[in-house]
């Protein structure tokens, strides 16, 4: 008894020390990353000025910053960002809900698995963005077609990981539920689904990146608004500084989304992080 109690507190204390150590390392990591970034931007700015590189080949960071500023002040970036963000988020949510639900059905019912699985295997290697032009023809130039493309691109990692997670439940836990006479639905909710969460989150992390990709590609293929549309427009006008400005917005957007995913993951999977 005493052996158990002390060894457990030791484990907890060791974990805490480990966490603190990591916090210290990542703190100095941030500093190094920031210094590297400033250095790179400085070299970039200096070289563009020194070698007089024209704006339509490579704009200086200062030119990109001013393009960013004018874009935001005129409201053009805010509107187009709103469109792309909406397409991305709604498409992603659609992919998440449909992907998890379909994955659950496939994992739980062998009949559904036999119907869906061949399609899944066939479609998985197909580059989904190749279907984008077709979807524009069917669903038009509006926001709807982009949401559809986003969902199509993002659903596969969610679906595949959900199936994998639900099937990887260890037999001991299932035996426990069976010995208590738990039904299929109860076992699913109490054991299988929470057990699959680490897999599902891994799928969602991939899906969120693909969602932004899907939105931009969709807008490239045919659109009236959005950041992808803005990039094409700037491209025709050789406004390379604006292209870079939009890329900056996209990079920040992607970063924010993946950070949100990380926070959600830490909330839902606290038990898993501590386990590994």
């Amino acid at each position: 008894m005493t052996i158990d109690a002390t060894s457990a507190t030791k484990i907890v204390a060791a974990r805490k020390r480990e966490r603190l150590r990591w916090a210290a390392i990542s703190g100095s990591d941030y500093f190094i990353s920031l210094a590297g970034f400033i250095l790179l931007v400085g070299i970039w700015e200096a070289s563009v000025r020194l070698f007089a590189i024209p704006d339509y080949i490579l704009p200086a960071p200062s030119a990109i910053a001013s393009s960013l500023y004018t874009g935001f002040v005129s409201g053009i970036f805010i509107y187009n960002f709103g469109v792309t963000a909406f397409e991305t988020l709604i498409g992603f949510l659609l992919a998440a809900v449909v992907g998890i639900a379909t994955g659950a059905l496939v994992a739980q019912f062998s009949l559904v698995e036999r119907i869906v699985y061949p399609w899944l295997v066939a479609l998985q290697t197909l580059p989904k963005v190749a279907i984008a032009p077709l979807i524009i023809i069917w669903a038009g130039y509006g926001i709807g077609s982009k949401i559809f493309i986003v969902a199509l691109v993002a659903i596969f990692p969610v679906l595949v990981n959900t199936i994998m997670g639900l099937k990887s439940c260890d037999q001991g836990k299932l035996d426990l539920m069976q010995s208590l006479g738990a039904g299929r639905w109860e076992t699913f909710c109490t054991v299988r689904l929470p057990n699959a969460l680490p897999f599902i989150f891994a799928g969602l992390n991939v899906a969120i990146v693909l969602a932004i990709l899907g939105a931009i590609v969709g807008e490239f293929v045919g659109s009236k608004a959005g950041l992808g549309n803005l990039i094409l427009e700037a491209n025709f006008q050789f406004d390379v500084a604006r292209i870079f400005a939009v890329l900056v917005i996209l990079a920040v957007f992607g970063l924010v989304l993946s950070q949100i995913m990380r926070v959600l993951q830490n909330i839902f999977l606290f038990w898993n992080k501590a386990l590994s």
Partner: protein
Amino acid sequence: MTASANVTPLLADRPVANMRPSAAIELHNVTKIYETASREQVHALSNINLDVGAGEFVSVLGASGCGKTTLLRIIGGLEGGYAGKLTLHGRGGDNSRRNVGIVFQDANLLPWRTILQNVLLPTQVLRLDKRASIARAHELIELVGLKGFENKYPFELSGGMRQRVSIARALVHDPSVLLMDEPFGALDALTREVMNSEVLKIWDTTKKTVFMITHSISEAVFMSDRVVVMSPRPGRVIAEIPIALSRPRNIDMLSEERFGGYTRELRRLLDVSALQAVNAKNSS
């Protein structure tokens, strides 16, 4: 029981603890045949006849593959498709889940639930009264020596502590039968010894019928009223040895002459059965 006729005199002249009250578990001619992928029939269990009295502590020893886990799974309602008859407290075994608690080799705790929530799991599945269940869970957590850990998560506990939680969980719905499948197999030797005594104390407090599978001869002798020896291919009972050591048991008994007698006898029986299995394999 016929097999126990060939026990050595050392054990035979003791008063046999045969005054068991009504049987808690009755197995009558239980036979289980698996069919492998290659359509080959494997006799996992062959004509098992075994009674476990109410409140009795029975251990099963046997080489791996002798079907002892299959036997436990049948009693626990985890394995169907067997021939013969299983009765728990005079009733058919299939709808008496409330009456059985199982401790597996792995604690099988749900890592996203606190210790208290893990212990409460069976009462939740069996739709038992919530308030009474919580009170009982607290009592059991105290009984297994984990008071103060109710709101911790499994990852904050050591292996031995997790297994204690799983024992509390197996008892929370107040089953009359406790099935344990190598419950200490994953623990280190020191923790294992402590747990043996702890479980005996819990058994003494709760008066459950215990059916335990183990690989450790001394653990079986130390804890049990009766040790059942099984032999593989086909899985069958070859001997039942009543252990007449006094209760409560304590660690000092391990060095007693009689304790040594039991372990030697059991080892002999296991060696014979292992030898037979090897011979049977060679001749086939």
